[in-house]
């Protein structure tokens, strides 16, 4: 259907290296592990970082464990935060004595004015108090260092909270090949066959990326797209049809239709441009993070192409040496439920500063009970960090005092907005690509 060879404009290429090994679960099994090991690994790993951060800020203060605290002495404690939240839903609510009068519809955000923070290390727990403690900004599972002293009533008075800060970043590749513009396209929330999704809109996107739209100028722009990443929630599945009883044949159709439609589009796309597909919260993949790649049997068409790559969520890869990390959005959505920030990009920035992309896992975000490591710790800071399935397109170029630079992108749901995002690998510039069925336009930012 698509004959690339005949196109006059050759598509640009970029060297692609997947870095998903961290998130591969194939060697892992559920054998009765618990989550404590994951917290242990997290604390252990980040403690080294925080110790040096803390010692730079307060060279004279001693680092103590919670049990080793001495009343009144200024010191540093490193531990995992636990946020006590009265509105936090619990599975025990199901067993409440009487059916609650309040409907069990969960509110969007569980933050309450009475929430408070507790710091925990292997030895114990202590409540954090003080003017510098803002429970709304933090969530359970973040590892931090606190500088302060133990008060008389067994609480820790915090003078300053210290975060690990951005992880070391690999060298941004110097543009060897004459500084060409090369773009990576990010799209999420296609939700094929959902009531709100417009099939034509999606087809327009595919046509644009494959170079079947517009004049030569448009086509040359499309030819600069070297890679497409579909960040989760690509199909709309009616899980309610799967009840355990055998599925009616007409329902079988309903079940399979979305994935067929997606496969069709992906086949076109993969034929033209290297395409990664990540699983999202509603896709036919497992639920816990890291989500494993969507199974090849779902894509009989697209999986034939070597340019088609089913990735994990989170997904990490390098294009021409530019490190790109992204999720389908669950980590940020969960932060949005249990903490407060002005924008989604701010949440993303926090995860980078905490050096952990999913601190609420496993507390409120499902994840695999690792015993040997915590794959969500950022050992290296990416150059591009994106998060899918958000309400609107937001972006920010984050730079820290050491010159580390990260492009943060909140990728909106395509089915609601018709927006995809293009990032220039040369200079991390970023713009959105709005597609609508009555007009085609491109907005640079």
């Amino acid at each position, binding site marked *: 259907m698509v004959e690339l060879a005949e196109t006059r404009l050759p598509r640009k290429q970029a060297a692609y290296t997947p870095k998903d090994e961290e998130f591969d679960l194939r060697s892992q099994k559920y054998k009765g592990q618990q989550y404590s090991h994951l917290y242990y690994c997290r604390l252990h790993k980040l403690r080294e970082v925080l110790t040096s951060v803390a010692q730079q800020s307060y060279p004279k203060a001693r680092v103590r464990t919670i049990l080793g605290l001495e009343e009144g002495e200024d010191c540093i404690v490193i531990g995992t935060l636990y946020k006590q939240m009265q509105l936090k839903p619990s599975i025990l609510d199901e067993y409440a004595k009487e059916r609650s009068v309040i409907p069990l519809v969960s509110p969007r955000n569980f933050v309450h004015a009475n929430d408070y923070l507790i710091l925990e290390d292997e030895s114990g727990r202590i409540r954090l108090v003080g003017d510098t403690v803002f429970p709304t900004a933090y969530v*359970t599972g973040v590892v931090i260092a606190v500088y302060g002293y133990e008060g008389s*009533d067994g609480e820790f008075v915090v003078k300053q909270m210290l975060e690990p800060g951005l992880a070391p970043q690999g060298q941004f590749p110097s543009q060897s090949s004459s500084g060409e513009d090369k773009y990576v396209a990010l799209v999420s929330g296609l939700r094929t066959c959902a009531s709100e999704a417009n099939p034509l809109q999606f087809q327009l996107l595919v046509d644009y990326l494959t170079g079947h739209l517009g004049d030569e100028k448009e086509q040359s722009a499309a030819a600069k797209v070297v890679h497409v990443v579909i960040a989760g929630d690509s199909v709309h599945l009616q899980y309610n049809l799967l009840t355990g009883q055998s599925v009616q044949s007409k329902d079988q159709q309903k079940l399979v239709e979305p994935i067929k439609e997606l496969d069709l589009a992906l086949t076109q796309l993969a034929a033209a441009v290297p395409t990664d597909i990540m699983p999202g919260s509603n896709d036919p993949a497992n639920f816990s993070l890291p989500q494993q790649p969507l199974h090849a049997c779902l894509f009989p068409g697209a999986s034939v192409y070597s340019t088609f790559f089913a990735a994990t969520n989170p997904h990490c890869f390098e294009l021409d040496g530019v490190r790109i990390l992204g999720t389908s959005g669950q980590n940020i959505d969960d932060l949005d439920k249990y903490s407060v920030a002005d924008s989604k990009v701010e949440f993303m920035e926090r995860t980078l500063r905490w050096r952990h992309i999913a601190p609420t896992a496993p507390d409120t975000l499902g994840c695999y009970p690792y015993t040997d490591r915590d794959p969500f710790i950022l050992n290296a800071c990416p150059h591009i960090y994106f998060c899918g399935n958000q309400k609107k397109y937001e972006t920010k170029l984050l730079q820290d005092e050491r010159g580390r630079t990260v492009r943060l992108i909140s990728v909106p749901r395509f089915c609601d907005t018709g927006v995809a995002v293009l990032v220039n690998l040369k200079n991390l510039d970023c713009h959105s690509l709005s597609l609508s069925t009555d007009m085609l336009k491109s907005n640079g930012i």
Partner: protein
Amino acid sequence: MDSKRKAGNPSTTLPPSKRVQGNLQSSAFPSQPTDEEEDYDEDVFMEELLLRDEELRDSGIEGLSARLSRWRRPQPQFDFKLQNIVFQQLDIDYIIGESNKQLTPQRSGPVAILRMFGVTTEGHSVCCNVHGFQPYFYISCPDGMGPDDIPKFKHILEAKMRESNRNSKSPIFITNVELMHKRSLMYYQQQKSRLFLKITVALPTMVAACRGILERGILIEGLGQKSFLTYESNVLFALRFMIDCDIVGGNWIEIIAGSYFDTGRKLTYCQLEIDVLYDKLISHSPSGQYSKMAPFRILSFDIECAGRKGHFPEPEHDPVIQIANLLTIQGEDKPKVRNVLTLKSCSPIVGVDVMSFDTEREVLLAWRDLVRELDPDIIIGYNICKFDLPYLIERAEALKIVEFPILGRIRNSCVRVKDTSFSSRQYGTRESKEILIEGRVQFDLLQAMQRDYKLSSYSLNSVSAHFLGEQKEDVHHSIIADLQNGNAETRRRLAVYCLKDAYLPQRLLDKLMFIYNYIEMARVTGVPISFLLARGQSIKVLSQILRKSKQKNLLVPNVKGQGSGQDTFEGATVLEAKAGFHEKPIATLDFASLYPSIMMAYNLCYCTLVRAEDISKLNIPPEHISRTPSGESFVKPVLEKGILPEILEELLAARKRAKADLKEATDPLEKAVLDGRQLALKISANSVYGFTGATVGQLPCLEISSSVTSYGRQMIEHTKKLVEERYNIKNGYEFDAEVVYGDTDSVMVQFGVSGVEQAMKLGREAAEHISATFTKPIKLEFEKVYFPYLLISKKRYAGLLWTKPEVHDKMDTKGIETVRRDNCLLVKNVVTECLHKILIDRDIPGAVQFVKSTISDLLMNRMDLSLLVITKGLTKTGDDYAVKAAHVELAERMRKRDAATAPSVGDRVPYVIIKAAKGAKAYEKSEDPIYVLENNIPIDPQYYLENQLSKPLLRIFEPILKNASKELLHGSHTRAVSISTPSNSGIMKFAKKQLSCIGCKTPISGEDQTLCKHCKGREAELYYRTVSNVRDLETLFNRLWTQCQRCQGSLHQDVLCTSRDCPIFYRRKKAQKDLSEAEVQLERWDF
């Protein structure tokens, strides 16, 4: 149960009482003699308890005393010469000691000295020794005996007493005999007074001895052999004192400066210790400023013992390793002291004083010192009376620490250990020791729970889940020893757990307002607080009768329960229930306090009852006699006002006052006191009826109780008649009213109107109209409307309750309760959900559908196992049970598998019913839920369907649904059945596993294939199915395990909890296992 109810035995026909929070004494009156212990005094000589000084060694523990001194009571600044002492007394007992030479110079030798322990407003502890009060009782003076015969009579009695008490050290037995003008409480008498002899004896136990002699009869010169009926000879000495001095439990006592002596010798650990004559006490009635509570100290504690594997800890072998303590001052919301004593080192805990010791001896002695220095007035805990305290005492005995048991307030005085045998149907017979700690009230929350609330389980975990809404981490006792043998960290873990167990009783105490409710109950009924938990119910009524009799110069005869407990009388009436689903509002007309009202209205009392033989003899004008429907005669108040009606009037008037005050009170503490009081008053009023009907009780009088119920029946019938006569179309009403049901004290009327508001209006009007036809104070009240109302049968109904026309208040059910111990959670869930759907959603098809899908889930093996678990307590080992019981057999089998984790006596055994060979006995089909999960053993869905679900479901649905049984239990949804294959059964060892197609279960040959060729096309759909199963399980796994982490309060430590009472325990296990299985399924796709 039903057959018993009809028999009109007062123990089951409860005095009408609405369900109220804190339903004290809901168990009404005991009908079995085993439940009611006879109250008797026990003379204890002070020197018997005292240890000699050389036996006493200081615990000599360093660092302890500094800590202890911080926690002491404030030091009193007190001038014994000038200041009055005002204190709230909490405990009253007596001891035999030498008579006080200053206060009672006329007596020598051993005398009974009463001790009142209490607390002043400033929080100082007081011990007040009361002298000069002597035990006594009455007998009727034989005809022909005059004042001149008294010395002779006294002499004979003294000689008789000496003869039968040769070993007594007392130099004198009968201290005084005097003639008094009194009257017996029993039966109406026209004569206003007769002569009685008041016999005063030297020591309290002599009352019973002397009573025995007199009842058997003595030979009196000139009168011949005479036996006597005694009066007030069964009154406990401390209670006698309280009645005579007008002291009620927990009230304030004042002693004016100068009328007391400061005890020079410090006999107790109390801060203020005084001696006083009994007539110098000023007792303040608990009202106004004296209704407050003193800041008394409450110690909550819990111990941990390291049991050997497979055994419940025994004090002869197993050490006490930790004791957690929490001291709270009444009225403060934060504990003052939190500490834990541990054997061997223990890492610190934030906010808690951890004190570690190298030897068990030090731990025990440190606790002794702690108790002494903290000086608690009330000691609370969970099951402390039956476990913790006896264990500590016996452990100290085993370790030969003689100085340990000085826990009371008397210097050098050991606690008294009484062997008791505690028996009840639920618990079987248990030998245990009762520990008496002088001067400190023990309040065991377990006993209070069992007495006041009907729960399916009384474990601390389920009780706190029920009342506090939180789960408690439960560490199995086989792990405790491991934690103890670990390091300081693991012991810290244990200490945290132990502290929580000490904290929860305190929270329960606060939440359920036990202190307020019990102290108010003591004040209302006039008995010491310690009686409320430790003694039977009837003493509370008896105390009131005795007090009232004293005012009226009446004497209460000592009539032993003559009845064998088989005398019965007709109970309350129950109108025929018109079963069905009533979709029109049902107005409920209630008699307010029916039985007390009847007793007041018709002047029913011991002293107004006219015996049949007396009616003609006494020649009472007929207009002054009321004949009850049961054929008894009572005189009207003009001739004699009964004391029971008077007691009731006072109680109800006091309740009215308390309720009025409650409305105006603003201070939450004051509110708590008042609410506790009005509740206590109400319960006390209702229990008077039961007292008269308790055939083995203190003063049974079936004439009264049968009259009460007969009036009650008459009133219900009368109400029914009036309602149906008045509210009908003939009289211009829109519909014919119909009484659909009536029970004891309420009548349910369907007026026919469809609006709640109209029904309320008619209900109110009817109540007023009918009330007017009754003798005051009997009153019919309109309170609530049920709409809709599902009436199943007598005493079983459910409905939505409305008290205001806008919105319903709640769902109210009766007799459908699912808290029965041998029900599994599934029953409760299904019943609740069905009722919800039927009554609130008004969706009967939805309810039917729900039942069907639940049954289908059950048959298809998709049920959450924790819903199927049945739990029973193991009270003795298998050999001691006469009949084989499922849980006992299981415990035996588990012991054979692994003795270390098997349940032992005292544990609760959870089990599920599994499929077994045909003809297997029910008790052979029980199995450990964990074992079932691990080995894929199929459960027996038929058992659950037939023995658990069917009855309650049919009860609900039969009034609604035609062919309910057929529709619900035998429909098409019951045809698909799935049974898991056990992984451990014998035959499976020989079976060869073969892979089958995930789609159609056809066996397939290739190792690397997932689907057969026919199913290839459905690949995507079948993959969805596998993956969605994994998704669901992962979600569940995550939510369950993180919840357990939150519950245990630690992220970095593994979850250890094995609380089988926790609803998610089995789910957690199952999710883990199911997930690894689902993963294997998912992996088959990775070819």
